[in-house]
């Protein structure tokens, strides 16, 4: 797998680069701001890119903008956005683009090499990966929106896991219940949300998140 990395801190750029190459992932370019990220993606056409949110010149959300631009121009490239803080609004921006292959994680998650690489592979494969912290914010933020308050605590747990991009089997393992039970919960959630069931896990995640971020 070929990856472009954008991170303005040289220390972190080097750390992430080493971690990825040790996990057998080729970092074809490592750059320091959004502009260079777009140029590098145009040049190398990687499977995925990893970008920090806060980069020069304004240190606000350049990385996020660059990530959205990459998704718009090169749909075959997945983007994984990293940040010291995860913000619900940025997550909504990412998942509201009506496509998938996006990820948004706290920088802390990088230290768990296997999990980080797994997230990167899923993003490259066109899935959606969101940090549990963001999911929590999205769920809370939507409490004032009615359908969610009708969910049982168990359904809420399932929805959270689902929003995190887990498969039914994964959710079953997480909650220590059978996959049949998971499917039952998911059907019930979709009924309550009045959503058509779609094919594929990440599609459902997007549907749910779009609903939450509406």
């Amino acid at each position, binding site marked *: 797998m070929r990856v472009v990395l954008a991170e303005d801190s040289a*220390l972190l750029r080097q750390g992430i680069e080493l971690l990825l190459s040790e996990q057998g992932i080729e970092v074809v370019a490592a750059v320091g701001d959004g502009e260079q990220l777009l140029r590098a993606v145009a040049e190398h056409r990687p499977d995925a890119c990893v970008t920090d949110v806060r980069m020069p010149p304004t240190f606000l959300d350049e990385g996020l903008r660059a990530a959205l631009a990459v998704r718009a121009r090169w749909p075959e490239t997945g983007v994984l956005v990293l940040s010291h803080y995860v913000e619900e609004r940025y997550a909504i921006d990412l998942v509201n683009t009506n496509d998938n292959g996006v990820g948004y994680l706290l920088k802390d998650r990088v230290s768990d090499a296997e999990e980080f690489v797994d997230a990167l592979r899923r993003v490259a494969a066109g899935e959606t990966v969101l940090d549990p912290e963001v999911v929590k914010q999205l769920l*809370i933020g939507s409490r004032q929106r009615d359908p969610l308050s009708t969910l049982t605590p168990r359904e809420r747990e399932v929805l959270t896991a689902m929003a995190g991009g887990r498969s039914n089997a994964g959710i079953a393992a997480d909650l220590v219940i059978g996959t049949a039970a998971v499917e039952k919960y998911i059907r019930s959630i979709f009924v309550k949300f009045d959503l058509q069931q779609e094919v594929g896990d990440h599609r459902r995640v997007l549907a749910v998140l779009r609903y939450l971020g509406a």
Partner: protein
Amino acid sequence: MTENIAGFATGRARTGARPPREVVPGNPLRALASPVLWRASIHLVLDGLVALAGLAVLVVLVLAVCLAPAGLVGLPVTVVVGWALFRLAAVERVRFAVTCGLELDELPAPVCSWRLVKSLQSLVHNPCTWRLIGYFVLLVPVAVVTVVGVALVWAVPLTLVLLPAYYRGLPGGEAQLGPFVVDSLPRALLVAAVALLAGAVLSPLIVKLLLALDTALAVALLSRPRGMELEQRVNDLTESRARVVDAAEAERKRIERDLHDGAQQRLVAMSITLGRASSRLKKSGDHETNKLVEDVRRETLSTIAELRNLARGLHPPVLTDRGLEAALSAVAALAPVPVRLDVLVEPRPSSAIEAVAYFTVTEALTNVAKHARATRAWVEIRREGARLDVKVGDDGRGGADLAAGTGLTGLADRVSGVDGRFRLSSPAGGPTVIEVELPCG
């Protein structure tokens, strides 16, 4: 960006005039030797000249005011004379500073331009105009007293001290001082000695008295009126407070940035290195060591989380980027009780006001978590024209008290720092509601 907050303080005296730096010494010998006495004497003599100039200006002013109905001539002349009055006052300020070391504050100058009506209005509305007219009117009699006084104080003793030298040349070869006739050298010397002594003791005293009269008049009418002084001071303080609030906000942003660029990045880099070590150990099958490394990594992650919360509490970058609602959604998510968030803030207020509103909500929710024993909380923020209303409530047990030394005191201080209003309603048994109004012009 570093600012010295203390450097904003403008060192102004509390009144319009500082006491003279130098006074005529009380000891007559010292007084005679001191330049202060002679400068004071010159000052008193100059009173006459200034009084004449003032009188001239006042006469023209009266004429101009009489001509004012004629408009074309009267109006511009009045404005020019008004301006001249203030220029003369400025000359007086310099004169008092040079000859008596009395420092008077500059008077707020009236507008003086071709927009005659506006200039005239600013003259009439300026309280200093009337005080200056009063000053120059009173200066005429005062100058008569001081000029005559200072002339006598020095001329009389001098005439008498020199008596032995010229009494023979006087008509009849003698001088008549009341009942005392000077017609011999011993007598003349006696008079000279008495005059010398009396002059040395009394003259400085009389000069001091005359000068006191002069400076009293200047301090009373040539300095700013007390009310104006206070008004100016309130304006200065309001401005400097706003600068201090902005500086503090900038400082918070800077610290957050420094933490982000420094400690947070380093810790994350460290956790990544630990993660790499852990995955190598896993591959080599050294589970004992791996467990240790994993412990350290987890510890690092909780440090990162702590630091993240600290930095976010200082100033979340998303607040600058996306405003209050976006920044508060995460705060609400982290609260231990469900929080209903309802934010309508259009257009966005200044960053200082936004930061205070954000801090209000975070502080209030922290209190809810710590003390309220609530099951739910709600936040409502509305922009009403030039006002931002922030309300935070919970269904807890109430009894919150500003005096109890919770974070509420700091919150109230920060709100008053931007001229906001803070209200707390928390009866025993609840509910607790904090209402904050912030100005956002």
